[in-house]
């Protein structure tokens, strides 16, 4: 029986840890082969059975999806995985470090191990949004900034920039460690159009775009729809675009 992957996860130091299950001990040397799904180029690293740890940063992986194979004397097999590849809490921990490239192990829909590599920008990951008491309220955590979850308070501001316009609205926000919370009156947003929220935190360079990308739910536009509020005849509704960036839409 071919080995199957029972655990696969990329840790905070960008090391891919894999645990294999095999019915019989495997003889000889083995290589883990990562092959770019579109471009076809590959990286080969020595793999120990039943456990191996692969530092990914030295492999110079380019963004995209990389399928995993195991190569040995008996040939090459695509690695079947029984592990979803992540825990939500560990994804949050992974997002604590400052990064420009992110690695994420996952099980494909047809049951194989793969690695997703993507470019990252520091961002404000949204966890909850409310329109209540005529305010837009949002909470979440700072991702890929390098700040620690130490509970230290920092000065911050929620900025709403109207798309295609120079109009912007600003309000003070609370940041403790990597957790943030902000609330803005809806009366300041009563111009029709789309508003792009971002968070400006003292000590961090550029404002952080409010998005939701690290909770394993892609395409939030379809899956997570927020209720609308009506203020002075204007309909206000937060929504996500196809990249899972948050907007606040205002219609007459």
């Amino acid at each position, binding site marked *: 029986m071919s080995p*199957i992957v029972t655990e696969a996860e990329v840790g905070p130091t960008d090391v891919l840890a894999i645990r294999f299950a095999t019915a019989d001990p495997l003889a000889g040397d083995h290589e883990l082969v990562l092959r770019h799904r579109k471009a076809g180029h590959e990286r080969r690293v020595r793999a120990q059975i039943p456990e191996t740890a692969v530092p990914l940063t030295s492999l110079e992986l380019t963004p995209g999806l990389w399928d995993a194979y195991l190569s040995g004397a008996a040939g090459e097999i695509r690695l*079947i995985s029984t592990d979803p590849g992540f825990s939500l809490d560990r994804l949050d921990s992974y997002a604590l470090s400052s990064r420009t490239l992110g690695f994420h192990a996952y099980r494909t*829909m047809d049951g194989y191990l793969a690695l997703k590599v993507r470019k990252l920008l520091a961002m404000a990951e949204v966890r909850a949004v*409310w329109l209540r008491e005529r305010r837009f309220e949002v909470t979440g955590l700072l991702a890929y900034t390098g700040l620690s979850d130490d509970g230290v308070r920092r000065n911050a501001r929620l900025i709403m920039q109207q798309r295609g316009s120079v109009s912007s609205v600003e309000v003070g926000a609370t940041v403790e460690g990597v957790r943030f919370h902000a609330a803005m009156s809806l009366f300041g947003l009563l111009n029709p159009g789309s508003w792009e929220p971002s968070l400006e935190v003292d000590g961090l360079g550029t404002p952080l775009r409010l998005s939701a990308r690290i909770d394993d739910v892609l395409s939030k536009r379809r899956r997570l729809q927020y209720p609308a509020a009506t203020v002075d005849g204007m309909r206000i509704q937060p929504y996500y675009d196809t990249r899972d960036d948050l907007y606040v839409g205002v219609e007459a």
Partner: protein
Amino acid sequence: MKISLLLPTAYGLGGGVRSAFNLAARLADAHEVEIVSVERHREVPFLPLDPRVRLRSLVDTRPESGTAGPMSVAFARLPRLMRTDLALWRYLRTPRTDVLITGRPSLSILAARHAPRRVIRIAREHTPPVPERAGVIKRLYAGLDAVVAVSEVDRGEYASLLAGTGVRIRAIGNSLAPGNRPRSRMDNRIVAAAGRFVPSKSYDRLIHSFAIVVDKRPDWRLRLYGSGPEEKRLRSLVYDRELHNNVYFMGTTADIEGEFAKASVVAVTSRRESGAMSIIEALGCGVPVVSFAGLRGVEEIVESEWNGILVPEGEDDGQAFANALLGLIDDDEQRKKMGVYALETSVRYGSQVIGAFWEELIGELGAGRRS
């Protein structure tokens, strides 16, 4: 031996199609197997099918489906139901198979009436006999070789209805897909539920119960997998209960096991279950199930406080269901223990085990024909 599984459609994604595909894949280890879909409305099936299993359809309902020759043009102009009936009748008169397994009562009745007697005809029943149709079933199912129910309780009802007819009655549960399946780590704060958004699935009950859960454990999320006519109403209910941050409408997926494996609990609030396929798949991923007691067939799979929790239906069952979810949410150790027992239970529904029951039945019926 050639085995054909006749389904209303092989192009959907419900439990009936999943279980038929799983059974076909297992039977293909030793037989020539085909799936015959009465209707075809997509280019390719939504769910993956074992490449050894042949798939064909009787009526192509895709708007772009071509017609060749004057007979085909005339056929395409017939009303849809008439086309289906005609195509089914034509197929059943000469099915070119040794074993015909029908996946719905209407198909079983037609198979009993029109399929040649040399073909072994087996009705695969996901529902109990409907009392209003008891007379029809009694009269027409007598022409079948066997009826296979998904649970013991259904088997008992078919057995008493068809007593003295000589039809073999068996209980064989639905089968998990062959091969390795994903296993939950049981550490994500996710409750999952899957099925069509129709009243009988009672997702409204689940959403009301989950509101109670969120009140106490706001960091837990409910992921609903499926689609259907109730979706708009359910989304409104989510807004009304201010659960929009906690309830995600995940849409349909061809890999429900992969999604269950991301969850720590699977909730089933149906008012009736027919093959309990989702329950078996959840257990197969090592995830405990919370459901209602008294659901036909479910008590044969879920043992309360062992591999899940069965909540008694009653006046305040929404609160009771929420309490059951909270009980598992708050007790990591118990939840993980139930996950292990869930895996143990799922062995009974492995494709090798279920496939062996089918092989035995088909072998018996084949031997009866030869003697």
